[in-house]
């Protein structure tokens, strides 16, 4: 089962360990788990990436489509994020259960990629006010093993890098 219930004694044990800079799986307080990044996994997308961070597994697909620029930014294309927490991560995500977490992560992604230094949106423009590229970034949460934001941001970055 994906959900783990801890007893009080276990919680005290974990807290004491952290105070001594030793976590449950032997890492120090600032150590990362091993990250595996794989790109170009889904063939009918413009770019894709898969990231495995311990037990967390994220799959991102980027599809590029033509669209019209937004009215307040006629010279730029834009990105649309959609996060799908699939039920395979944990049974609580079945049906609409994963929607709350999905929208929260999607909103965070919008804020992250909103500034000029992350993605140059001007290159996505084809003709001002008429045509531009819209990049639909779809994030699929396959397995949830903690630290979702890091893994998702790495995966989105890798998928955008892989986009032709």
């Amino acid at each position, binding site marked *: 089962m994906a959900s783990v219930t801890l007893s009080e004694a276990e919680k005290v044990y974990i807290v004491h360990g952290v105070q001594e800079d030793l976590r449950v799986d032997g890492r120090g307080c600032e150590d990362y788990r091993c990250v595996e990044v794989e790109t170009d996994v889904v*063939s*009918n997308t413009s770019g894709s990436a898969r990231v495995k961070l311990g037990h967390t597994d994220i799959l991102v*697909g980027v599809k590029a489509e033509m669209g019209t620029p937004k009215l307040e930014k006629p010279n730029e294309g834009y990105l649309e994020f959609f996060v799908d927490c699939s039920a395979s991560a944990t049974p609580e995500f079945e049906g609409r259960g994963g929607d709350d977490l999905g929208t929260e992560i999607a909103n965070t992604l919008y804020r992250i990629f909103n500034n000029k230094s992350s993605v140059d949106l001007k290159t996505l423009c084809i003709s001002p006010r008429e045509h531009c590229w819209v990049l639909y970034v779809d994030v699929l949460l396959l397995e949830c093993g903690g630290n979702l934001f890091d893994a998702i941001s790495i995966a989105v970055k890798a998928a955008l890098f892989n986009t032709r």
Partner: protein
Amino acid sequence: MAGLELLSDQGYRVDGRRAGELRKIQARMGVFAQADGSAYIEQGNTKALAVVYGPHEIRGSRARALPDRALVNCQYSSATFSTGERKRRPHGDRKSCEMGLQLRQTFEAAILTQLHPRSQIDIYVQVLQADGGTYAACVNAATLAVLDAGIPMRDFVCACSAGFVDGTALADLSHVEEAAGGPQLALALLPASGQIALLEMDARLHEDHLERVLEAAAQAARDVHTLLDRVVRQHVREASILLGD
């Protein structure tokens, strides 16, 4: 359709296969450590992932518990980037609900539900890339996942799609062949006894041809069974090596 021949004069299909030939199948069991059972299958360009949780206590209302057998709960979800055109909603739309129901019917016929009364078995299937034959890929992946979870089944459930073009029955249709609009049939079979778990067709086909198309689908399902059997044995062999037996 002008210009696109589904079956050439020499008997070759659009992707170079013969009429009864399956696409290349690769499968892996035990992809996720947190789930009770999981499996991943690739049938040509169609990629499906199945995850099984269970048997566990009924979530939600206790009133749904069946006193003599387990409740099988299936959800079918296809990723938004799975098809050529981007899909808006991964699950909750009619096609996904219908597929979920069909998967549930299929697996209620195969899983020995009497062994786990008042409990629930969840089967979640995710289609990562859809290139025709999604129902078949989902059933095959779910079979492997249920086996990986250790839930007892009557037999493997092997599925394959079949169509009918120019008087010949084609097995394992790809997206191009499905989109051409001819009659197509999806069959889920329990190979050892030859019993049919689910047969679905929503097109018009003359009854004289039904026998041939059914036989083509059944033969293809038996071929799939040979492959899945090999995958399971390989997985068990690897697991026992790791355990040191």
